[in-house]
């Protein structure tokens, strides 16, 4: 049971990552390969605030979101001038930079040794120490993020994102300064990724840079491509599928290290099969 709760918590965290990444990739059609950087910045900001000042988790998470948003604003100001392949490559570059900062700015991040002893959240004297209560918290935050994503995609703003995805130059001609739209959705998406980062840090109670590599960004992309771009349900389905799959492989009798490697191969194989047979993903309707 404890094990199932553990899996469910991970699925919730990755669902938040999928939902938020979908805003940029699925809705606006911008192939961002830097989501793990914001996940990481959110995790580190929350972890440092918690361990250094002992402030409340929720306050730390909110401050972490603001910090992540500010950094995303700087990165997005550069990225939003690009589209297509340049956007993908540029964003990948930023992930690499953020990762090496997390790794090398030892005085702040403690480098490769990471940050141990991160406290579990508590609110009004109630502690989310047990995994069951932590799962509840994760699900509540997932629901909130889902709601925010729904509001965004159903607004006039969301429709403009779709038009940017379809033909950015055409929608510019109708009076939209698309750079601002791309920048705002990039920042919002990063701030929501920081929520996942905060959850992750206080759930595992330890973080190090290895959780926030380009590989991790690609894993998040796989989640939404598998589940279906621009589909909220798809993001959750994709997260569940890709988190549970390697566990299932383990249960199928493969030793842990083989399962870990099979996991990489399976992601690759799934992506290739999808591109061949269902490029819009399981639940999605759109193609990039």
């Amino acid at each position, binding site marked *: 049971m404890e094990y199932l709760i553990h899996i469910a918590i991970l699925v919730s965290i990755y669902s938040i990552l999928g939902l938020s990444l979908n805003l940029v990739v699925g809705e606006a059609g911008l192939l961002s390969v830097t989501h793990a950087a914001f996940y990481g910045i959110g995790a580190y900001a929350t972890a440092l605030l918690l361990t250094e000042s002992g402030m409340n988790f929720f306050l730390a998470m909110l401050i972490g979101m603001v910090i992540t948003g500010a950094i995303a604003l700087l990165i997005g100001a550069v990225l939003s001038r690009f589209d297509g392949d340049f956007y993908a490559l540029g964003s990948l570059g930023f992930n690499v930079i953020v990762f090496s900062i997390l790794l090398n700015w030892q005085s702040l991040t403690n480098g490769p040794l990471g940050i141990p002893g991160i406290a579990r959240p508590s609110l009004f004297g109630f502690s989310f120490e047990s995994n069951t209560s932590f799962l509840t918290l994760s699900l509540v935050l997932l629901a909130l993020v889902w709601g925010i994503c729904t509001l965004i995609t159903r*607004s006039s703003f969301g429709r403009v994102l*779709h038009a940017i995805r379809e033909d950015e130059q055409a*929608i510019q*001609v109708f009076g939209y300064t698309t750079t601002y*739209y791309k920048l705002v959705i990039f920042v919002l998406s990063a701030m929501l990724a920081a929520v996942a980062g905060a959850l992750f840090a206080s759930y595992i109670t330890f973080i190090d840079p290895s959780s926030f590599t380009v590989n991790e960004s690609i894993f998040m992309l796989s989640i939404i491509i598998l589940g279906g771009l621009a589909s909220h349900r798809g993001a959750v389905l994709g997260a569940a599928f890709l988190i549970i799959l390697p566990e299932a492989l383990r249960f199928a009798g493969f030793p842990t290290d083989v399962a870990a490697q099979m996991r990489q191969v399976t992601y690759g194989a799934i992506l290739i099969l999808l591109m061949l047979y269902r490029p819009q993903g399981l639940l999605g309707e759109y193609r990039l």
Partner: protein
Amino acid sequence: MSLLETKKLVKKFGGVRAVDHVDVRFEAGMLTGLIGPNGSGKTTLINTLTGLLPMDGGTVVVSDNVALHAVRPTSIATYGLTRTFQSVRLFEQMSVLDNLLVVLTERNVWGALFERHGKYHLDTAEDILKKVGLWEKHHELAGTLSYGQRKLLEIARAVSMRARVYFFDEPFAGLFPEMRKVVSAILHELRENGAAVVLVEHDMDLIRSLADYCYVLDSGTVIAEGAPEAVLKQANVIDAYLGK
């Protein structure tokens, strides 16, 4: 009154001047034909005027009072310009209705984030879609429409802009006769309402019946201008079309 005017406008592709010191004027309440053989620079002129291509020289004057030496695509709507594309550019994976709503709603980023389209937007979109006979299809994706329907939807999108100057780049090409009637009626109505309507068209009968004035382009230069009847009789115009 002139709503848009160019002075010695130049657009080069490498060494080739696709638009070569062009002077044209588009007047309120007039339908101006833009004709010329294939490759004469009609689309390039429109693309330059709407900021899709950077201009390489000359001036664009909006409403007799704003002189521009560069046009950005994002600002043409504020100058009251709108257009269709010769190569039909719809938002393919969006519904027919959304293709119109997106040009009717809030432009400001924060405004748009906290706005959902209202009844007013829906009613306007419905009116315009009914005019082009696409209301029944409003839930379908634009990408699933037939070629003619796609052209009509593009025209509807331009009309939704309530612009002052409309560029229609071959709106009749590939349309069935009944659709052509719909398009003619729309162009007429825009003109009656005081807009400057610019029409690129290869069918000279249409130009004769619709245009008040026309410019003939050849190799990027204006070789003739005036009332269509007179212009189409000129020897140099006939030569240009025959490729002499």
